[in-house]
């Protein structure tokens, strides 16, 4: 997948001729932080992400009811004071289930993104650093991943491995690692001719040391930006596949699965359909807003494009 969001407009100031910048004494990290802070939407997105993470960590400690606790006496209750998001046919509290679903979403998205980094970073580093045949073999292999529509590939992998959240994480990671490798390789190639790398090479540092100490830190910006977008995409893929019955299995309160289960009763209990969708939108939006701002702050080249 390409960068998921189109570029933000560069600040109007960029068009104006100006003298030298007063920011030149600050470190790149400070600069990026300052630029990130200036983007209000990015801050909103970050706050939303924090909320999601807190709910995920809090888990059953903070849910009003047991997410899987059934109570036939309150079956199919519409949203009200006792159950703000209503209950399903087993009388399970939907708000608690949605909160528990946050944990599923976060586990799947962070898990698959971390796994994709563990695979894609070394592959991209090696391909970019050594180039030649090594790079050709790695990148042609990755091309095959790009040759598949994302959802379809995930679907096929999960279908053959068997539907479960672990397999879903693996499938998503396999897809993402190709993107990671591609981005890392491109950044490595642009960085490896820089003087400080040449200098390290001149004092005969080992390749692994050069990659870890000098190259890796310099390719992290695009990787972080990409990872943020991957988080939002992973939430979407998890929800999609769980919706199709190929991810989380009942009674796991995954948003996608809840949405799928709601379809049977949606005419009588539309809240069961509406709320899980809003939860997905909230999470995807959160990571996208954060990613947009991160990209503008960390990787100005991308946002100018």
């Amino acid at each position, binding site marked *: *997948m*390409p960068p*998921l*969001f*189109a*570029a*933000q*407009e560069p600040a*109007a100031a960029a*068009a104006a001729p100006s003298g030298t910048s007063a920011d030149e004494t600050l470190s790149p990290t400070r600069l990026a932080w300052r630029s990130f802070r200036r983007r209000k939407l990015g801050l909103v997105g970050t706050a939303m992400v924090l909320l999601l993470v807190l709910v995920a960590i809090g888990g059953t400690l903070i849910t009003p009811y047991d997410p899987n606790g059934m109570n036939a006496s309150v079956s199919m209750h519409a949203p009200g004071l006792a159950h703000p998001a209503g209950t399903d046919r087993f009388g399970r509290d939907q708000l608690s289930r949605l909160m528990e679903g946050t944990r599923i979403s976060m586990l799947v998205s962070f898990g698959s993104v971390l796994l994709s980094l563990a695979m894609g970073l070394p592959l991209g580093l090696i391909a970019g650093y050594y180039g030649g045949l090594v790079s050709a073999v790695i990148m*042609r*292999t990755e*091309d*095959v*991943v790009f*040759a*598949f*529509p*994302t*959802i*379809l590939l995930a*679907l*096929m*992998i999960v*279908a*053959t*491995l068997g539907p479960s959240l672990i397999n879903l994480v693996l499938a998503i990671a396999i897809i993402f690692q190709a993107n990671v490798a591609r981005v890392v390789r491109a950044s490595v190639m642009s960085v490896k001719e820089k003087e400080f790398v040449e200098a390290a090479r001149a004092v005969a540092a080992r390749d692994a040391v050069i990659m870890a100490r000098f190259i890796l830190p310099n390719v992290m910006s695009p990787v972080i930006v990409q990872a943020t977008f991957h988080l*939002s995409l992973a939430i*979407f893929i998890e*929800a*999609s596949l769980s*919706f*199709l*019955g*190929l991810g989380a299995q009942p009674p796991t309160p995954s948003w*996608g699965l809840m*949405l799928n289960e*709601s*379809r049977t009763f*949606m*005419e009588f209990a*539309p809240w069961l*359909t*509406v709320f*899980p*969708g809003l939860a*997905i*939108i909230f999470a*995807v*939006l959160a990571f*996208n*807003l954060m990613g947009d701002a991160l990209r503008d702050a960390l990787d100005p080249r991308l946002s*100018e*494009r």
Partner: protein
Amino acid sequence: MLRYILLRLLGLVPVLFGVSVLVFVAIWVIPGDIVDIMMGDEVAQSEKAMQRLRAQLNLDQPIWMRYLLWVGNALRGDLGVSMISGEPVLDQILERAPVNLQLVLIAMVFIIVIGIPLGTLAAYKQFTWVDNSIRVGAIFGYVIPNFWLATIAVLIVSLYFPRATVLDYVPFSKDPIANIKGLLIPGFVLALTTLSYIVRLTRSTVLDTLRLDYVRTARAKGLGERVVMSTHVLKNSLIPVVTVLGIQVGVLIGGLVLTEEVFMLPGIGRMILLSIEARDFMVLAGGVLFLGVVFVLVNLVIDILYAFLDPRITY
């Protein structure tokens, strides 16, 4: 130009090889003994039947031989027969493909006819309320999951318009107009994610182009804004949009599975889902391979289109 197309066709060979290997490995190797899995519950299956199935799937051959036999058959148009119905897989695919083609085309029309003008308008009215509302709309359009929107659409129609036929699928051969009417909402739902993405992309590429020197030159010639926009800005801005549209076809194809499931449309996506449920691996492999190859070919067409749009590409 011909040479360029030929070169691109040649470049397809390794990609298609990789696609076929991936499908083969994923479906025929990773799961282990397919026959066991397929027979799964039906313990009562006779040993004889299992042997027959093994032979039919060439499971007695070494793995590379199995691959070659499978690919060879696929190249000849033989994707095997469904293990459930005994119907040839290719027949099933060809029977269902028109629905997919229609859906993707309808979605593409929405994307191009709505997305590009909206993005251009937003760029042209940058920082005004028009721009802001288009941008907010595009952000939400992008993050709304299509399967949820589809479900909500079905919900709304069944709750408020129980007698409406807008979501009824009618085969094209029976009533073309009713057929297209029935596919409009699914097509729009399928399009929405990509549509929103294209709005944002068009907006940003138009903004980028508007800042370029040659646009200033065009204005310095005394050309009016409309001419500057249509002849100098739009064509250049559309070059990256076209590339992305090619990649987005992948999103559309992926979305087909979900859209068809919710709207109950008889397309390949639904066939794939049914085959997963039924553990009909022949159909699954055939369907995935088919859609994968189509996606690769679409990207080839986009590449060639790109070369037409941008004279700087050397063939």
